[in-house]
């Protein structure tokens, strides 16, 4: 039984049910039930002859639609709103061939609806689009299953009035997928891989340069994953990563996708971010990094977003391209409360040779770090400089 195949069919099966007249919340429940049923009854090892037991593996989607529709009808009949729903079913046109592509897209847009909070949108997307169970999503976010179940049912109620045929905002969909990607890895579901799978699916259904840009960005970041942490779990900065462990296949794919997107001349934030990632991925050694071009891409990003975080990253790139003094000058006008501002300042001071200031700032940055890996890394940087300073009598 191919669970990945099952999950990839989720949004289009859901879309077909909704198109046939099921309301979104009930359809979503029915599809989940059908997925559970499939896991239960489909043979562990699909073979051409398995259809003899009545499980037509050649048409997994058809099987899921049939089972989910039956589950929906069962639930509808049992429901207090039975009559209304049965009327609805009677009035709907007979089930027929439906183009899966549009429906899949609508499910994406619905799950990322602007009326949902980010955490609700993420949870609903992972279930309704990704086909994950509530338990898997709860484990990935380290919250109780009951909490996640409530989050999802609230999200479904929130979008229950949303008209299904209204086109959504692609930027919101991309933001949700980006949030999933950045959660990274925890529990038995790899959310980064899951985000890539969903973004691939979206890119296949929806021709948009920013979707391609986000997919390229994810692939380029994901390609470096193995080298990003040491065996003990500590963080390895980009310059010190073993580039031999970068996944060249993913990098090549990411760069191809990015180039095709850039060629269409509709630049957006994700394409520009992916361009920066591609320049890092392209360098054989850290010293060969084309920092001048990276600064240019950050300038593009600034034009698109004018975000303080981009200004901060740009200042670090300027420090590499034009020297630490130039980097510190670019950093000076920025708000010191920005995440990683102190860490960037520490790094630039160290490169400028001012070790006491750098050591003090690294320790300060460690106290402000938002996660353990960064805090431990920054603490080590401070300790390294302090040991050196102590050793030379400083």
């Amino acid at each position: 039984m191919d669970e990945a195949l099952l999950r990839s069919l989720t949004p289009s099966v859901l879309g077909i049910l909704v198109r046939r007249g099921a309301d979104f919340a009930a359809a979503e429940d029915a599809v989940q039930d059908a997925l559970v049923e499939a896991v239960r009854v489909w043979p562990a090892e699909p073979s051409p002859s398995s259809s003899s037991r009545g499980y037509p593996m050649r048409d997994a989607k058809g099987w899921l639609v049939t089972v989910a529709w039956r589950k929906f009808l069962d639930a509808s009949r049992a429901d207090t709103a039975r009559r209304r729903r049965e009327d609805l079913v009677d009035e709907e046109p007979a089930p027929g061939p439906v183009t899966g592509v549009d429906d899949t897209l609508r499910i994406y847009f619905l799950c990322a609806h602007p009326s949902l909070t980010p955490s609700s949108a993420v949870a609903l997307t992972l279930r309704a689009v990704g086909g994950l169970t509530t338990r898997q999503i709860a484990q990935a976010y380290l919250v109780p299953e009951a909490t996640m179940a409530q989050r999802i049912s609230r999200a479904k109620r929130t979008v229950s009035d949303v008209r299904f045929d209204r086109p959504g905002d692609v930027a919101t969909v991309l933001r949700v997928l980006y949030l999933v990607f950045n959660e990274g890895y925890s529990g038995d579901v790899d959310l980064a891989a899951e985000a890539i799978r969903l973004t691939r699916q979206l890119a296949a259904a929806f021709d948009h340069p920013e979707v391609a840009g986000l997919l390229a960005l994810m692939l380029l970041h994901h390609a470096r994953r193995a080298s990003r942490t040491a065996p003990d779990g500590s963080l390895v900065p980009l310059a010190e990563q073993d580039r031999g462990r970068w996944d060249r296949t993913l990098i090549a794919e990411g760069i191809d996708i990015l180039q095709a997107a850039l060629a269409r001349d509709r630049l957006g934030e994700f394409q520009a971010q992916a361009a920066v990632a591609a320049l890092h991925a392209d360098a054989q050694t850290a010293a060969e990094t084309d920092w001048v071009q990276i600064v240019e891409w950050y300038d593009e990003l600034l034009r698109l977003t004018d975000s303080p975080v981009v200004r901060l990253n740009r200042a670090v790139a300027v420090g590499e391209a034009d020297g630490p003094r130039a980097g510190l000058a670019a950093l000076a006008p920025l708000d010191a409360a920005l995440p990683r501002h102190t860490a960037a300042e520490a790094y630039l001071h160290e490169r400028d040779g001012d070790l006491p200031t750098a050591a003090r700032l690294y320790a300060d940055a460690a106290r402000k770090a938002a996660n353990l890996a960064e805090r431990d890394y920054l603490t080590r940087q401070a300790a390294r400089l302090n040991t050196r300073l102590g050793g030379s009598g400083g």
Partner: protein
Amino acid sequence: MAKYLLLKHYRGAPASVNDAPMDQWTPEEISAHVQYMNDFAARLEKTGEFVDSQALAPEGSWVRYDGEGRPPVTDGPFAETKDLIAGWMVIDVDSHERAVELAGELSAAPGAGGRPIHEWLEVRPFLGAHAGTTECTFK
């Protein structure tokens, strides 16, 4: 989506505005207080923001490694302990503002005279274990 610890203290926090020891409340006031806390937790379960809630006994032991092959040393509770944690609630919310808003509501639990305690609650963000996927060149 970030987790926060809402920390209640027996001692160590600044004094509440309505600062009367619980054993001097009426039983009805205590019931109202407990009900408020339960309702608060139940509401957060419904919004999908509740993670965990625990109460702690005031008495604790201090334990220390005492060298290889020896049992750990225990002592205390030390009289000079300044801070004493009464319990916690862990929430998972979309923003720091939301965490502060909820802590404010929890602080309004009714106490003596049925009036809000105006107790000080400590709000502490969880540090994530992972650095996320994006990376900086410096860190």
